[in-house]
């Protein structure tokens, strides 16, 4: 299995992620899943819509995965983001890493999601009952 999985998909399946990151040299696997939350600042969210500049997003995700592998001693890394319309509770992003010891996979996992949110060209639109908002667009 590949040491670096970087994907943009229509639907995220969380059931296989630990199997995907598992290997004989790892004692720990840390995974973060971002999901659609029902309320944002007390307003009820109907759904979220994700749009990606696919080609560039994959390039940036690959850079983040490679950077993480340089910063920490990791065995496998995964960054998978969903696009399209997502309902409450749906998983929208999965990042994770496996390593011999747990420090590395915890730190790397945090780095993966933090950096993804800063640099990967993916946009999230919140659909409320009476309006839609592109998240972070305005100060």
């Amino acid at each position, binding site marked *: 299995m590949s040491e670096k999985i970087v994907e943009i998909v229509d639907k995220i399946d969380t059931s296989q992620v630990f199997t995907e990151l598992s290997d004989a040299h790892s004692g720990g696997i840390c995974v973060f899943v971002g999901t659609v939350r029902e309320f944002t600042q007390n307003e009820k969210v109907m759904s979220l819509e994700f749009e990606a500049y696919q080609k*560039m*997003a994959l390039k940036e995700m690959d850079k983040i995965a490679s950077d993480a592998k340089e910063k920490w001693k990791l065995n496998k890394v995964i960054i998978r983001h969903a696009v399209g319309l997502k309902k409450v509770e749906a998983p929208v992003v999965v990042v994770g890493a496996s390593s011999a010891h747990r420090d590395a996979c915890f730190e790397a996992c945090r780095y993966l999601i933090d950096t993804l949110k800063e640099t*990967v060209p993916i946009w999230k639109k919140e659909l409320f009952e009476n309006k839609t908002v592109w998240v972070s667009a305005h100060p």
Partner: protein
Amino acid sequence: MEVLLFGIAKDIVGESLIQFSESEKVPTSVSELKQMISETYPEFGKLSSLAVAVNSEYARDDVPLDRNDEIAIIPPVSGG
């Protein structure tokens, strides 16, 4: 020259693409492109940030633009 638009940039322009025809004045650098679109669509000035990608890499203001480059406006990202 074509400029790809995503997220709120697409909403501001009302299209998923800005096309500069052969006869039009085209921006020669990232900073010129930013200036031109902000003048035509003042809403861009209200965004938290505005980046440009050239050939699917973030490009600084001084990067020159060529007709054959893949150019994209990158409004504030919000993945994850």
